[in-house]
């Protein structure tokens, strides 16, 4: 693959809280190439949203202590001025948020919200932008686009709203798109159609996609690479096939075992993970999953396992002192 679109290196994001510094993201590295779909999974509070908002630049040095590197097309995102970053947003980098109802402006008609994004391009006049907005509404699968142009958010269904959000996000054909739990607020059938839309857009516009989700099924079907996050760190990283079909880090295995499955008769009963994620202000010294891990060994309690590539599969990295043996995972 060519030079990566987005490169995140050793990213640390630390919030100042009343109880002391809280490391929401702790040493995360991530690559996204053009046309590639990268999934980020993890439990609630594992830092997925903070990671994507920081990687996009929405969360900056004013909001938290940030170290590490974020490079977009070779440019250092953290060193940029507000103005430079704003120039990228909506044109080169875009985001689709979780709740489409609260993400759309309650008063402005939806078409106008697309036009506004299109008009970031100085060559777009009002008439052209309007025509293009209707085209976009049509492209994301909204029937009677011309009429819907004037609708307000509360007049649309949940699926339609998220389609509008996607139209806004891809209006200026960005090269990088973040989607933070884009289908969590939608019902299952609508969810599938929205995810297909993402697949289609990534293919056709060769957009690099970062898809945040706590749903392993979504990530398995709709991304190429995946990073599993636990308590601010990446615990396993690789292609979807490697990570989800032969997980090595115990947390990934536990997550997979916790999904109820109806397609595999023999693993019918889900096994929930006991315990709670650690307090990020005072995290455990060693592996952060150790207190909840059924396979923890002595080293887990006091030494941080490094994220290292597997000996046989170089693209598959995991951080575990006592990894799941490959044959068992199959």
């Amino acid at each position, binding site marked *: 693959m060519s030079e990566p679109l987005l490169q995140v290196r050793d990213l640390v994001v630390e919030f100042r809280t009343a109880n002391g510094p809280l490391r929401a993201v702790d040493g995360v590295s991530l690559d996204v190439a053009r046309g590639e779909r990268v999934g980020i999974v993890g439990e609630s509070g594992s830092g997925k949203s903070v990671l994507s908002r920081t990687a996009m630049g929405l969360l900056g040095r004013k909001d938290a202590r940030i170290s590490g590197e974020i490079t977009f097309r070779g440019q250092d995102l953290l060193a940029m001025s507000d103005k430079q970053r704003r120039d990228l*947003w909506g044109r080169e980098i875009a*985001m689709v948020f979780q709740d489409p109802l*609260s993400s759309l*402006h309650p*008063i402005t008609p939806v078409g106008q919200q697309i036009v506004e994004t299109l008009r970031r391009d100085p060559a777009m006049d009002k008439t052209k932008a309007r025509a293009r907005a209707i085209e976009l509404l049509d492209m994301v699968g909204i029937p009677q686009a011309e009429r819907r142009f004037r609708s*307000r958010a*509360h007049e649309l269904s949940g699926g339609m709203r998220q389609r509008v959000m996607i139209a*806004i996000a891809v209006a200026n054909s960005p090269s990088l798109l973040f989607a933070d739990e884009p289908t969590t607020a939608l019902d299952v059938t609508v969810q599938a159609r929205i995810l297909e839309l993402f697949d289609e857009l990534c293919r056709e516009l060769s957009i690099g996609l970062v898809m945040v989700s706590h749903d392993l099924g979504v990530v398995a079907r709709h991304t190429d690479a995946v990073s599993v996050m636990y308590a601010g760190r990446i615990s396993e990283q690789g292609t979807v096939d490697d990570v989800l079909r032969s997980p090595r880090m115990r947390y990934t295995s536990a997550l997979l075992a916790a999904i109820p499955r109806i397609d595999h008769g023999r693993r019918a009963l889900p096994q929930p993970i006991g315990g709670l994620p650690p307090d990020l202000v005072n995290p455990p010294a060693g592996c952060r999953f150790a207190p909840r891990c059924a396979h923890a060994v002595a080293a887990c309690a006091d030494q941080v396992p490094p994220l290292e590539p597997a000996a046989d599969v170089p693209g598959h990295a995991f951080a575990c002192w006592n990894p799941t043996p490959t044959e068992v995972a199959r």
Partner: protein
Amino acid sequence: MNRTRLLRVGLKVLRLAAVLLVVSTLCFFSLALLPGDPARLMLGDAATADAVATLRAQLGLDLPTMERFGHWIGGVLQGDLGESYRTGQSVTEILGERAPVTVELIVLSQVIALGLAVPAAIVAAHRRRTGTDRALSLWVFTALSTPDFVVGVVLIWILSVHLGWFPANGYAPWSDGVGPHLSSLIMPAIALAGTSFALYQRVLRADLVETLRQDYIEVARAKGLSLTRITFRHALRPSLLGLSTQIGVTVGMLIGSTVVVESLFGLPGIGDELAGAVTARDYVEVQGLVLVIATCFVLVNALVDVLYPVIDPRLASSRRTRGGAR
């Protein structure tokens, strides 16, 4: 659809009429309870009891209270507000002369209050919990707790006595020229604007802070829009409902505040007239003025009510679908 709408408008008008009826009744009877006799006040202590009785009969004050009330209300319904005991001038005529001054004073004060409160609220909301925000709220709190009268006196002292920019007292009508006219109104308008400014800044700041927390503001940011555009095109309009309610209520209360400010600056407005009428126990005039003031108050608030769905169309459609399937 059209009929239900007509019905709703009809109901609204009925409700307004009921409010006004209650207000005028209360006003009439509370005045009747007041000690003091207009005839005695007009003739002075030296007048004989006979003379006072004759005047009372002339003014119709010897009639039973209920009868007087019926008489007055009957006139009001025909558009006749009665005549002042003191001057014999009709109350409608008095209003025609004096209302423009007060209306202009109130409009000017609201322009000043909003002109300062909106920017101050925007700045405070964006810099919430910083020094700027705290400094602004201190200023707002001071404005809120200083009586208009005190502001007026300070303004006179600085701007008239020391700097000589504006006349300390008196009214120049439009016929004297725009400059002198506005100069005679500017200080009372500022004095009157203080409280409104403070109330508006607080309400709008709070609503803006709430709006700026919404997801759609983050989305606007992610679109790469400038802070100015986000503030004025995205955040401001959804934050205006509280402010409009506050304006409705405040304008109503301002009519009361004009009593003090108009007297202080010697402006021939309704407030000044009302103060005089109460002192002289000029019942008919007081009743007429209060009724008109109450009507204005009710109308201003009805107007705000009508404006809600224009500001936020969600309100219009939620009302339309209320009770229907969600």
